[in-house]
């Protein structure tokens, strides 16, 4: 034995240790493994914060989109009426806009960067920016079953719009990198499955199991000195497995808690394969999946594209014969008002699900922020110089609610949508110096 090589031997400096011949160097071995997630993005009450962006394409009926006063006294327009039960948990935010999406061309160019604030590139090669939900997923989502849920009720399309932007920008608001959107799940059954182990940690576990077998079989063929290095590998695999286990047991506990406390809790059966015939069922199921994920802690970040830009959805149940996009071209019509109100009612539905889940003194909704967005203000004029924006939920007490905020007159620098994104990410413990086109937080939020 050479004690020069024993780093624990007293009196031998680290430097000697490093310089000794044949010495194992300082390892990243002891690098800590921060358990992110619960601890990192916990609200003051100790409950995890959740975020979901809920999107509808082609704008709303501007005549019926307003609110006055605050808190319980808040007066809501016809379109916003479905949110009446959540007045005190609601913020109606007027006057924000996404500058890189203005003046570049209608539809896809107004949509693909709504959560990134980066300029979009025309033509066959797409380029924009990572979206804020994915930034959150990369931080607070890392130790949940699904870092994020990216759901939609309409398949993405990928042709070219007359503006020469790819239609993919009309379908995707979640981008994992500047070049690639996050594939969107449209089937409720698969979205549901993604929350269960066979699609999440169990996949990792299967890989690690097999890899351990490989190491064991390799170990039989090599010398004891080799084994020492392979032991490092095996130990590391076991450590990672432990973390996966811990994550799973944490989640099992969370589910348990949810079962104990959540009354009424989501008693959600696996949706049928295929798509629901009725779009109302489809949207409700997708909302249920988000609610279930949030309640059970399986995911804390979601985007839900209820309908994409240039949507082809129909609303026979509203008595509207035109498809969504066509209807939006007459945005002040009663028809489009009822379409807009229908979408707001979906937001209200998701909020009601979360609000029905007790968590601590409050509900899951209180620890959540639902961000409701469209890519335009007026579909007739394709006007996106201001956008309809709502938030529901207090994000664990970090977001003041029950307010009507108006940025219409504050000047372009002070009404950036990306400033709102920065402010929301801040509240979830992800503090960036800048995001998209913004370097400042949204004032008075």
């Amino acid at each position: 034995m050479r004690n020069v090589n024993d780093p624990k031997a007293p009196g031998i400096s680290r430097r000697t240790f490093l310089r000794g011949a044949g010495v194992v160097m300082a390892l990243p071995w002891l690098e800590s493994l921060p358990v992110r997630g619960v601890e990192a993005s916990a609200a003051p009450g100790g409950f995890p914060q959740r975020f979901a962006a809920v999107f509808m394409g082609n704008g709303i009926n501007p005549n019926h989109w307003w609110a006055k006063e605050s808190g319980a006294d808040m007066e809501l327009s016809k379109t916003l009426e479905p949110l009446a039960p959540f007045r005190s948990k609601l913020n109606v935010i007027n006057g924000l806009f996404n500058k890189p999406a203005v003046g570049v061309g209608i539809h896809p160019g107004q949509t693909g960067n709504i959560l990134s604030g980066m300029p979009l590139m025309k033509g066959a090669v797409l380029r924009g920016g990572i979206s804020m939900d994915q930034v959150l997923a990369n931080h607070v989502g890392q130790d949940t079953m699904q870092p994020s849920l990216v759901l939609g009720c309409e398949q993405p399309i990928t042709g070219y719009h007359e503006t020469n932007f790819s239609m993919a920008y009309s379908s995707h608001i979640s981008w994992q990198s500047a070049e690639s959107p996050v594939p969107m799940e449209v089937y409720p059954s698969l979205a549901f499955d993604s929350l269960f182990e066979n699609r999440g940690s169990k996949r990792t576990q299967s890989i690690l199991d097999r890899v351990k077998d490989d190491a064991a079989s390799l170990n039989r063929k090599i010398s004891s000195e080799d084994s020492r290095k392979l032991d490092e590998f095996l130990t590391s695999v076991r450590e990672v497995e432990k973390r996966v286990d811990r994550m799973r047991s944490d989640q099992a506990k969370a589910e348990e808690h949810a079962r104990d406390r959540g009354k009424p809790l989501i008693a959600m059966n696996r949706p049928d394969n295929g798509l629901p015939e009725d779009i109302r069922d489809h949207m409700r199921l997708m909302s249920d999946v988000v609610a279930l994920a949030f309640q059970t802690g399986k995911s804390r970040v979601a985007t839900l594209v209820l309908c994409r830009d240039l949507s082809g959805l129909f609303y026979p149940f509203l008595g509207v014969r035109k498809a969504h996009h066509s209807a939006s071209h007459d945005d002040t019509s009663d028809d489009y008002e009822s379409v807009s109100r229908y979408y707001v009612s979906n937001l209200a539905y998701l909020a009601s699900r979360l609000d029905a889940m007790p968590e601590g003194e409050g509900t899951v909704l209180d620890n959540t922020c639902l961000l409701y967005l469209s890519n335009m203000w007026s579909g007739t004029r394709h006007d996106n110089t201001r956008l309809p924006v709502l938030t529901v939920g207090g994000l664990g007490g970090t977001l003041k609610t029950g307010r009507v905020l108006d940025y219409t007159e504050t000047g372009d620098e002070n009404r950036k949508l990306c400033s709102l994104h920065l402010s929301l990410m801040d509240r979830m413990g992800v503090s960036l110096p800048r995001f998209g086109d913004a370097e400042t937080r949204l004032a008075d939020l």
Partner: protein
Amino acid sequence: MQWIRQLARTTAHDAVIRLARWSVLLVLSSGELFAADPTQLDLESRFTNSVRPFVEVYCITCHGPEKPKADLDLSPFSTMDAVRRDFPHWELVLEKLQGAEMPPEKAKRHPSPELRQNIVQWIQDARRYEGEKNAGDPGPVPARRLSNAEYDYSIRDLTGVDIRPTREFPVDPANQAGFDNSGESLAMSPALLKKYLQAARIVSEHLALKPDGFEFAPHPVVADTDRDKYSVLRIVDFYRRQPTDYADYFMAAWRYRNRAALGQADASLVQIAADSKISSKYLTTIWATLNEAAEPVGPLARLLAQWRELPTGGTTQAGVARQGCERMRDFVVRLREQIVPEVKNLAAPAIQNGSQTLVLWKNRQMAANRRRYDPGALQIAGVEPMPVKLPGKIPAQEEQAALAKITVTNLPSVAPESTAYKNPNAQATTQRRRTNQPPSTPQYINQGGFSLPPAILTTDSSATFKLAAARKRAAGPDPDLVVPADPAERARYEAAFARFADIFPDAFYITERARVYLDAEKEQENSGRLLSAGLHSMTGYFRDDGPLYDLVLDEQGRRELDQLWQEFDFAASIPQRMHKSFVWFERTDSSFMRDPEFDPFRPEDKSVTDQAKIQKLGELYLAKAVRNNASETVRQAIREHFEIVAANILRVEQEHVTAEPAHLSALLRFAERAYRRPLSRDERNGLLAFYRAARDENGLDHEEALRDSIARVLMSPNFCYRADLIDEIGKATQVTPSSGGSRREEAHSSIFPNQSLLTSAATGRVNSRPLSDYALASRLSYFLWSSMPDAELLAHAQAGDLNRAEVLVAQTHRMLKDARIGNFAREFGGHWLDFRRFEEHNAVDRERFPAFNNELRLAMFEEPIRFIVDLVREDRSVLNFLYAEYTFVNAPLARHYGMPFPSPRSTRREEALSTSSNKSEGLLTSAAAAGSEEWVRIEHADKFGRGGLLPMSVFLTANSPGLRTSPVKRGYWVVRRVLGERIPPPPAVVPELPNDEKTLGDLTVRDALAKHREDKSCASCHARFDSFGLVFEGYGPVGERRENDFGGRPVDTRASFPGGGEGSGFAGLLDYIRAHRENDFIDNLCRKLVAYGLGRTLLPSDDSLIERMRTKLAANGHRFSILVEGIVTSPQFRTKRIEQERNQSHAQRE
């Protein structure tokens, strides 16, 4: 171990007593030493009797366990065995004793010169003894993970794309020799393993499925739009690689005509086509056209006239001929544009103009017209040109009439003769038609539907038409379009036009298509929609490359192109997605399908692409069109559309089903490549079982399960570790009289100087066995390429002959010539010379040195890599590293060096460069490759103060602290990195020089250093390297040449070198090195290379190898390959230590 430390602390008076105790303990603790031979006993007793007491008396006061000076603690070396295991420290002791540097002057006690010499002698003897006793010992080389660089390169070679997943990994530490490729330093941790997991997943997201296997895309291909991008860019890239410039063909024809004068009398047309990198098939067509026996009329006559005017003669005429050929091309293109048949929009009541049914029909017509012409464009002599008609929609009846009329007037002889390619839309190949196609599919569907006869309708969206239209407006009647009025003559002319149009298509392929039903010129703004079908908003692609396919491509090219399109459909499910997009569009933007009868058809619904549903939709769609009085053409277009859609979707669905087994085979092949050896049966079954379980138990679909399987392979230690497996014992010693076994034995004896190393039972102390052939292949490839073995190496491993000397050496030479040697240049060179991370070097003040931009930084980083690559591939003398008068520069570096940069065409392209354009060979960092900067070799760089490694700006800059030079750092770099001198680290308290030369006051850096050396404790080291840096004072902080420093003082580059000799500047340094230090350089290079090649720190037992290498090097013109040959044929490279025996002997003793 506590007792040793206690011993060390006791005083020398007890030495004698302790000696006795040591002896006993030594015997007990080391079985090997117990059985030692006389020399060893002698050394052992000299150690205990004089060396150890010497250390106790003269050294241990400072170099004891408590705060050892210079971090050197000699107390643990209580036995010769301890010395043997950590010899590098004793080499330091040797150095210090020899140089009489230790004990220091201020020490209380000093040994007599005899005593000192005695100890020196012992260390030398011990080293020699140990080295010889174990010569060829492979040493401890444990299983180790791939280094980050090796991981990235391996992923690149395995997948064919440069994903570089380790960007997120922590930086690998280096071992004592300065390399990061050894088991000593490469460790694994849970945090790193998690990153491996992420990396494996990232790589798996690049998986691109093909009908017959899979490959990897340069970006993730999970979302539809990414899948599209991948295929589209590959197809467009294929198109753009094809030679379609008419001038090149005319020029090749000219070369053929003048082949005798050009000194190629025997050259065939095929050969000339190959030399000109054009299609021999199309050249044959062009040649035949230009040499027709019959006298042509019309456009061909004019072309031939120009052809005949081309000069006759050899190379001297080539320039003139080229100009003539370009004029011929311009003539063809201009005339061709004006006779493009136009295809009008097909229109139908209630159907949107941008609908798939109508636009795709129009695309089919245009595709069919590429080699046809529009007789209406001709002008009859003496007849005023007809005013251009601009009708809107053609009424159905009129359309039918026009159809009939044209069929009559258009002569059968003008129909293009090609039959091979007729399938622009169904994308069915001739092969597929023979094999995979469902027999029930009507032929016309495979051919993309019915085409109308040519030239009845007009298009305003053909690529060439846009230009033609502009010119038509600008120019009046064109004499080239005039045909005689006489009917017989006119027919001859029309036939000539038809032939002209047939040979010279209006386009060989279409890469871009904006909306084809709208104004072409306005639509030109919508560029970049690669391969788009030109629909309104919908997903849609359209293949239109018939002329390229028929006229230019050979069989292989056709196959490749067909495959690319087939893979596009397959990977991105194009027919399905186009159809879903169609349904979405027809129900929304177009209101055609808003009637309730269409309600069952929803794009979100998977069943919308069922055959029955497509058929049903087709019927409803047609019925509605008929109700709206659509023309017969429209009805036909609708029928065709739905039939084509149904057939294409069926085809792709069938391909998806039949592809699954192929993907699993590909997965096994992938694992085999990843593991760098064949899979055992258990491994194969295990991998397939994993895939199965992923589908059955985890409920994944085929593609997801494959992705997980890929991740699982990449996570396996079989991939991410190198274990250097030896042959299984039975296999290694098995000697079959007639075959491989005995041959292998011979091979060993011819290479290995020490035969006994090969057998574990031999008398040597170190037991080792040959590596398996596969392990040897990996060792070789990770040494020379930092990556996995290629197919050829693995084939030799499989054949079992890699261990044969001649095969091993031949493979080594092949590998040294390969472009992947760039990895070696970066990894070995980068660590040896310490420029590994210079791409990220940020210590330069860019305001003071505006010339230092990212481009220059990258060029500086590249220079030594280029130099090393050239030296290795060309197998030059390693002395070139020092004395070469040449170097390599690109334009920014040439500017920096004040060298005139030769214009690209006048210089020989650097060979190393041109091969690097192949991405997978990856000689360059991608940034440099993307900049496609040209590098040239500068022969007389010495005129500019450059040449060889030493004055490269990368080293001068990296060793300058910002706004001044640092002769200390530069000199230290030269003596340490290049000459291999070992110099202890500076004491903790050293005066800092200011960072800016301006602030030095009256002193120059040189003066400041001279003052520093007045302090004796500093002088002992600084005297050894300052001078090596001072000679570079003529180079500023970013390696720029200079006369004055920043304080405005003239620079002084004189220096007195250690051991005598004066010199000035870089040249003076070279003179000194040549006279005194060349051996140091060679010795250092050998040692570094051996340490790198073996992946471990050197042992005394490597001395004889290094000695052999040096001898052979000197005898063979110092060629680089001699060094590598020496290493790869050495026992330490080809064998592995076996430790069981030793353990056993321990066990027995106990």
